[in-house]
């Protein structure tokens, strides 16, 4: 089993180490690779480890060391997946009762329909595991791992459309401009790994659906080094990672040695600390040229592991391949792996569309949990599954035999978490019989963020960054930790 070997430094103290070594010592280390010193701490230690920050991250014991967020973009229907509502089947075709809707506004897409007929899920549901969670027949693999999962059936948001919804889930604000969750963690926790980025983003190839934007993994007003690094599924996994044609690694190394020699010469002349950073920057770039191909090469994975994730795993850019890659990155100490799987926006043709999405994601999702568990990594890896909001219990557009659609529904939806510090085989929160309103234990996006940060040992009120005179937080001025789901 591979475990990151560089986790020996406590949070945000790397800067002491860095300053403690003499320049000569540091230089000699550079010559042999940078060792345990993360690039980030070489920059401006004050910026990396602000006073607020040190307090924030050393404040709590961390239950999780890293996150894998399986974001299902477009908003999967809670009614077809986890929030089993037989009442909707019983009252299929009846109008959404006013007593349920309570005058709440609807989106501009179905809000003007003259009729809002309830739709029962066409999929069978059964209870699984010791916890007895209800799972849709479309998710047979997830059904096998329910005892690892902590369901939150009462997540809610304010956004009613994808742009604001995804932006809210990823940055804590509906409007662009704020840092993403991964950027906050990169800023708050720093790097675990000398050869790989702290925050990695992957998207399932070719899913269409609602467009995403690079700000979803952007650093907002945080220093831009906290941007998520997107791994692409084509030859250039990272932008210009590959040497140009005609340059092989040995000749690159040779040229790089001379470049570094010139940089050291200049460092001796000027004693300018920026040169130290520059030397490290080029060494890390060089290492990434081998570490990233290494992590994306599944050659060393056993047949049984590959089988666990399903046939798709062999095709780069599939959700299955990205899930396995997420595990490999997590193993190597990447803090935050963000997966996007788009196409869950089922305004019409929901039954067919939902089946297709499950087929692409169900097995790899379950495989990831099992794989992490087998390797002893699930206990300190937090896996999160969910979309940006839920879907309506009534039909959008025309309801016909066997076909219907559901509109956006911000008032309730289901997410689950697993591993690092959450209760396994547990369900939190409850919606009404119509999966329309929350009747128990609502969890706002800010609460979710507060809880996630808490699991990583961060006090969400203390992880702040001063910008334009204000101390900004991921949770703005809100957020309560959902204590009941903590293991």
């Amino acid at each position, binding site marked *: 089993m591979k475990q990151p070997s560089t986790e020996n430094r406590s949070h945000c103290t790397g800067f002491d180490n860095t300053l403690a070594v003499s320049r000569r010592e540091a230089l000699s280390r550079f010559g042999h690779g940078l060792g345990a010193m993360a690039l980030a701490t070489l920059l401006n230690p004050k910026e990396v480890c602000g006073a607020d920050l040190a307090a924030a991250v050393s404040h709590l014991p961390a239950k999780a060391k890293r996150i894998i967020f399986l974001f299902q973009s477009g908003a999967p229907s809670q009614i077809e997946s986890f929030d089993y509502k037989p009442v909707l089947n019983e009252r299929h075709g009846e109008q959404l009762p006013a007593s349920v809707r309570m005058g709440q506004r609807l989106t501009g897409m179905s809000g003007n329909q003259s009729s809002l007929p309830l739709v029962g899920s066409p999929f069978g549901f059964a209870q699984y595991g010791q916890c007895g969670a209800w799972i849709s027949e479309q998710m047979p693999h997830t059904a096998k791992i329910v005892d690892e999962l902590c369901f939150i059936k009462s997540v809610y948001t304010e956004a009613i*459309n*994808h*742009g604001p919804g995804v932006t809210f889930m990823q940055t804590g604000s509906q409007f*662009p401009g704020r840092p993403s969750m991964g950027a906050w963690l990169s800023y708050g926790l720093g790097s675990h790994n000398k050869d790989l980025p702290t925050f990695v983003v992957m998207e399932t190839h070719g899913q269409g659906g609602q467009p*995403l934007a*690079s700000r979803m993994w952007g650093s907002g007003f945080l220093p831009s080094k906290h941007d998520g690094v997107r791994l692409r599924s084509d030859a250039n996994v990272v932008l210009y990672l590959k040497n*140009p044609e005609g340059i092989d690694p040995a000749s690159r190394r040779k040229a790089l040695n001379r470049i570094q020699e010139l940089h050291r010469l200049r460092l001796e002349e000027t004693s300018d600390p920026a040169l130290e950073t520059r030397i490290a920057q080029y060494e890390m770039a*060089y290492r990434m040229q081998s570490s990233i191909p290494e992590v994306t090469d599944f050659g060393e994975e056993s047949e049984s592991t590959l089988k666990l994730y399903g046939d798709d795993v062999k095709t780069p850019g599939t959700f299955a391949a990205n899930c396995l890659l997420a595990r490999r990155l997590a193993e190597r100490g990447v803090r935050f792996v963000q997966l996007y799987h788009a196409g869950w926006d089922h305004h019409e043709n929901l039954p067919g569309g939902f089946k297709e999405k499950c087929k692409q994601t169900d097995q790899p999702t379950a495989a990831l949990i099992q794989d992490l568990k087998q390797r002893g990594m699930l206990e300190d890896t937090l896996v999160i599954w969910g979309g940006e909001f839920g879907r309506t219990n009534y039909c959008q557009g025309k309801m016909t035999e066997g076909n219907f659609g559901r509109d956006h529904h911000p008032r309730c939806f289901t997410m689950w978490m697993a591993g690092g510090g959450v209760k396994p085989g547990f369900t939190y929160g409850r919606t009404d019989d119509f999966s329309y309103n929350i009747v128990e234990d609502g969890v706002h996006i800010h609460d979710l963020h507060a809880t996630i940060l808490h699991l990583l040992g961060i006090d969400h009120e203390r992880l702040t960054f001063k910008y334009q005179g204000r101390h900004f937080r991921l949770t703005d001025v809100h957020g309560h930790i959902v204590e009941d789901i903590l293991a």
Partner: protein
Amino acid sequence: MSVVTGYKLSATLTLFLITLSNTVCSSEGEKSSFNRDVLPILSDKCFHCHGRDATNQDSEFRLHSQENALADLGGYFGIKPGDLEASELHLRIRSNDYDQMPPEEAVRQLTDEEKDVLDAWILEGAEYEAHWSYTSLPERVDVPDEGIQWAKNAIDRFVFARQQFAGMSPNREMGKEAWLRRVTFDLTGLPPSITEIEDFLRDDSTNAYENRVVELLAKKACAERLTTEWLDVARYSDSYGYQRDERRFVWPWRDWVIEAFHQNIPYDQFMTWQLAGDLLPDATREQKLATTFNRLHSHKKEGGVAIEEFRVEYVADRTHTVGTAFMGLTFECSRCHDHKYDPITMKDYYGLSSFFANIDERGLISHFTDAVPTPSMPLPNQGQEQALKEAELAVATAEAEYARVQEEARDDFQEWLSHRKPSPLLQGIVAHLTFDSFETPQPRNDDDNVDKTQTSDLSNLYGLSNVVTPGNLALTSKANSLVPGRRGQAIQLTGDDAVTIPNTGQYARDQPFSIVCSVKTPETKQRAVIYRHSRGWDDAGSLGYELIKLGGRLNAKLCHFWPGNAICVETEDILNPGQWMHVAITYDGSSKARGLRIYLNGIQASTTIVKDNLTRQITKWRDGEDYLAIGSRYRDRGFKEGLVDDFYVFDRSLSALEVLQLSDGESLEQVLAKPTDALSATELNELFQYYLLVWDQPARQARADLRKARRKWNAAMDATPAITVMRELDQPRPAYLLKRGQYDRRGERITADTPEFLPDFPADQPRNRLGLSQWLTSPNHPLTARVTVNRYWQLMFGKGLVRTPEDFGAQGERPTHPALLDWLARDFVDHGWNVRRLLRMIALSATYRQSAVVPGEVREQDPENRLLARGFDKRLSAEMIRDNVLAVSGLLSNKVGGPPARPYDISLSYKPSEADQGLGLYCRSLYTFWQRTAPAPVMTAFNASNREVCRLRREVAPSPLQALVMLNGTQFVEASRVYAANLLARHDENSSAIISEAFLSLTSQNPKPKQLEILSQLYREQLQIFEEHPDRAEKLLAVGNAINETTASPARHAAVTVLVNSIMNLDECVRLP
């Protein structure tokens, strides 16, 4: 007593510490300064609960003003000046008990040093001061006497005085070539050429430096450099942003900025045009174009959103941008509550924001059409301009001709009267549905005419006979039903299911038409679509024409993009629910609201004109023509439970008599049957109108000619691109305070005003954006000039005198040199807001000439260089890094302006598009196509701002990705290869000459022997590799599109390519000396 002295001492010590770490000591020395020492502490640690925002804090005790802080709180005092033990503030901050302040759980605690500062301040009398940046710009600022020998101009004397007070002295002057490199990049964003370096080194005249600066400032490249900086401030992007983020046409604004900087127009004008160019008297096209500045925010294109929410967001973005860019204030906070740190109230916020709300815009842009969001203006090129002029003239001529013909028709009318026939045959009917029975629809092969949002499955549809063209059945979903109607049966609509009439009513805006029907509405509260030739509502900009019911009123419109480009009239009287009503609309093809009429029960209804500005086409959806439909529309509310009967479409404008005939079945017949001498004057007039529209041949011909002229004018306009601008509404939009900042929670009415703590709005100025810009550019405005000179100081030095250029408020940093900032600002205003003059002064200062290199100990003394006792470390910006290698390699295009360019990396962006071939690969980086949600990856890698919102500085940080881009990026490898070929052509086999030149042009300095030695070794090593592997050389030399022009061997060419690329990657190449 001894205690007191202790506090005093430690406070002084603290001041010293603060000096080095954060703020600046002035020459006053010991006594603490409220603004410098105390306010930052109170603001950051106390105001959150004891500040200005009284409604959102638990405590009644407020510290933001002396009046509040010293108030008698019932026998005890928050602060008792000079008396610590009687001051609750002192007791609480020193307490370890339950009453300690800040409370134990507070995130931000006071340090011991900060407590000492507060105590010292109380002892000294707890004086408050107005915040430095809110006080008027002084009329004059004295220049210190110090540093005369060192100083080259006034700037240096301020700088020297500060250094001297802190016991520091200026660093040595940098070498001439270093200065030249720095100033050339700072002013033009490009490197000095070798010739320029040599010329400058040779020039030992006294004004060598000055001449160089003057030359640089006059270059177009300088205007491009200043524009590049402004694009971040203006959040410029070539796409709309948010989610869909499609391309938009705004680059002419960018070219206007370049030209404005090149002309060096006074900065107050530069501001005024951008804020209010449209409001200037006889505004020119350029002045209007400048206002695109305020429309560069993101625009929403996502169906189903709350549209008002995004309109409010656009207004907010403008407010924040103007607040940040011109005032250096963080207005965002006060959008939801009174600012906690600065005296900006919510009322101030909404007073300011209402200046930016008065345009005819919508919070959603069209998803289904290519309409440019309104307000917009046509931006014709020369040919288009000519075509428009000619077409406009032709329309005027044709209109005059039609007027003339109508007058002449009076004689013929008399003639016709005497021969008229009684038959009231109505001409021009193209469809007539009676809704009397359902029929079986036949398969069609033009399924464009079926409502795709419903179903195209014929088994779910009924046919409806069309009296005029029996073969062309109308179609309806089976959900609609036939019920007893006004005559025979009528159709009753579900509201979700349309009746569509194929191949009917596809009218451009030059086409006169009329639509007549009977309707019965069940209610008069809701909005309902009665009929429309339009695929969608808000997310289609309502493009097309439509009759809708808004509560009890009927509303007819023709739209290109609602609301800014449309004509719309609305009836004044309220409909009667449950009663049949005969409704006709007639349109004359004029694109004017007065040409659009509504008739109720045969009588022209009195209507109000809601919109009268239709200038573009109403028929083109992105996926083709649309169909005429009754009773519903995609995502709109349909005519639920409404009844429609006898639906007619005419391809001409009906006269009033004809409409009346259709309504009562007799009027026209009766009038036609009346003997001429029995006709009343009214009847005669109505008959004349009828005659003109139906019988008079010359009038018919004149109408046809007019229509042709209009069609030509319309086509010329549709061919002309439109650009979003600001155009003030006639009446200001009512403005409200929005509770908690929520778009739908209106509070009190607000009038446009500037913040109360800033100078009054000038009484003689209009309360619009023009008045606002007059206010902003008034000569003593506390913020505008300070913020501006600070930005340009930052442009030259990398850091502003105020290190937080975007925040001049209480939470921002104080200026390192307050007097210098004021002097510069005053000088700037007094010399006509002359940016070029300001830059010249900075570039020629001794301060700017200081070397950045100092011994480590000196650096330690002032790590952040607050005393300006050395030059700043500065990495080149993203744009400069790329432009530098293009310039040195000779690939850089010198084309100024034009459509966005697509260099290689655009094909690797998150939303990739094809890279250009040729010129677009080699344009300066400010022209690179900027897609907001997926910016050019090379620019992003080097910390370019993403242009989502206004940003006044970039956070520059190194990352390994930058090394990858410069070592492997196509642009960089290609530039290396092309430059290598040039070097080989000039120096043949002389490798040390090659190295020297490459080093000099990429770093503006000659290599030292040791550097030469290492680079020679690098070259030899690479040459050996490529000689052993000629295939690799060939591959490397194939990177990029440029053609190899060299006779050198591939191995040699490749080795020089690696050599050049390696020098490009040196610190000396990407950082300024």
